[in-house]
């Protein structure tokens, strides 16, 4: 801990506020002082970051650092309860700070309005006792893991997808790290993101609250944290299971003969084109590496009557929400099996679209790989069409 407990004093107001902790023998006055002396870095102030920030602040963790560079938008509000409708358009860090200080003015809030990168990660992380990773992409996951291992900080990890979540505690001296569990990331595009696959709004609340519980247990030194165990949460069946995670003696960063001694280029490691060398932005699968057509170009073509063949690769339920019309609908995951349906149009110009342009980039890549000559990705997808061409098309 950065501060010794003798230096920590709780005011009469704080003693009243934390009464329900103070009367718990497992916390008590000493535990509450440990919480006040503790500092936790939250990577991401979104879905998982929301319950983390709310509960860690309410519990009386003395200093919370937040790393995020995003602005609150309407689609966040379904799950990111740290932010409100009035905050749409504000930087997430600002609304997070206001909300945290409203819950507990005794918390010191440090804001880092930046991407976590290989250049700044160690500098930022070394200022904290532990890290809670709530990021949304593989490069940052591996960056946080490696930086925590190198800095010797525990990393309370969680991730979510649709109705399922994973939680574990990595980076303790004798415990495993994320690389022990998953030595390598999946290639870009193979694993859909929450933006593509959707997520039950409550899930980050459920999983992030478990993550916050682990943070508190680690600070207090009580109970049995999820070190060496991976908790799987399935909200649909409401089943919780724990699997063993062993420390891999061959692990390149925490093993006996480590080969990684400094932070690397995580974009490259995850098979993505490096952006400014070593920074780690949200993973975008292979977009911009395939031929594209802009929404303006497509609009002009349609107006001229020069209509290409239009392939929608979203799921049928999405078409009910919003559509700009199509000649054929084949969800991207079904494409490899349903290529025969496209065969008659092999020599036509084909424009592929989805919601944001990510899935359609994958589909474009696939079609070109199997010999379709003139396939283009509609850049920005239906969202760009709504923004730039027809605002009556709903954004979702």
């Amino acid at each position, binding site marked *: 801990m950065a501060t010794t407990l003798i230096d920590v004093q709780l005011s009469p107001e704080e003693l009243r506020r934390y009464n329900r902790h103070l009367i718990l023998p497992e916390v008590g006055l000493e535990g509450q002082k440990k919480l006040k002396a503790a500092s936790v870095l939250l990577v991401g102030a979104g*879905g998982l970051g929301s319950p983390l920030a709310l509960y860690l602040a309410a519990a009386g963790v003395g200093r919370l650092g937040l790393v995020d560079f995003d602005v609150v938008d309407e689609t966040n509000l379904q799950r990111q309860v740290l932010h409100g409708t009035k905050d749409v358009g504000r930087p997430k860090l600002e609304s997070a700070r206001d909300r945290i200080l409203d819950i507990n003015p005794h918390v010191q809030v440090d804001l880092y309005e930046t991407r976590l990168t290989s250049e700044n990660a160690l500098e930022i992380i070394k200022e904290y006792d532990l890290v809670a990773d709530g*990021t949304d992409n593989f490069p940052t996951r591996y960056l946080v893991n490696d930086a925590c291992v190198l800095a010797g900080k525990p990393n309370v990890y969680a991730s979510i997808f649709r109705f399922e979540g994973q939680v574990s505690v990595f980076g303790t001296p004798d415990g495993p790290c994320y690389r022990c569990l*998953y030595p390598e*990331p999946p290639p870009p595009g193979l694993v859909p993101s929450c933006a593509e*696959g959707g997520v039950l709004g409550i899930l980050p609340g459920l999983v992030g609250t478990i993550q916050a519980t682990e943070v508190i247990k680690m600070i207090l030194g009580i109970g049995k944290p999820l070190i060496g165990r991976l908790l799987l949460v399935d909200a649909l069946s409401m089943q919780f299971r724990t699997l063993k995670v062993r420390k891999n003696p061959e692990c390149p960063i925490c093993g006996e003969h480590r080969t990684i001694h400094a932070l690397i280029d995580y974009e490259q490691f995850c098979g993505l084109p490096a952006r400014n060398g070593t920074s780690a932005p949200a993973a975008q699968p292979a977009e911009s590496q395939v031929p594209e057509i802009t929404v303006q170009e497509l609009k002009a073509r349609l107006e001229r009557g020069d209509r290409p063949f239009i392939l929608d690769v979203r799921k049928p339920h999405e078409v009910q929400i919003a559509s700009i019309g199509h000649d054929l609908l084949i969800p991207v995951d079904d494409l490899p099996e349903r290529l025969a349906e496209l065969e008659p149009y092999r020599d036509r110009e084909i424009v592929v679209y989805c919601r944001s342009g990510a899935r359609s980039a994958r589909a474009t890549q696939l079609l070109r790989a199997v010999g379709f000559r003139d396939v283009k990705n509609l850049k920005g997808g239906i969202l760009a069409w709504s923004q730039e061409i027809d605002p009556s098309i709903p954004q979702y």
Partner: protein
Amino acid sequence: MSTTAATVTIRIPTPLRGFTNEQATVEVQGTTVGEALAKLVEQFPRLKPHLYNEEGRLRSFVNIYLGDEDIRYLQREATPLYPGAELSIVPSVAGGTH
């Protein structure tokens, strides 16, 4: 088919259920983990590229558990199965924030 083949349950994680007709569990028969997984992708061929690489080896970002143990710490795909065993496919998932 060996006479000792056991009926086992394979748990399919959400990201891969699109390839198993949304089934969360699939029952197959096999004497080893490798055999059971081969039966699974035989039944659902679209799952195959998500579990195996081009050389036919299990992908490194897909972990397979027998009960609560990673098969990498058992006998990998040669790990023998027993009746009622539960195999879980646990892929890496990145979602969290946005």
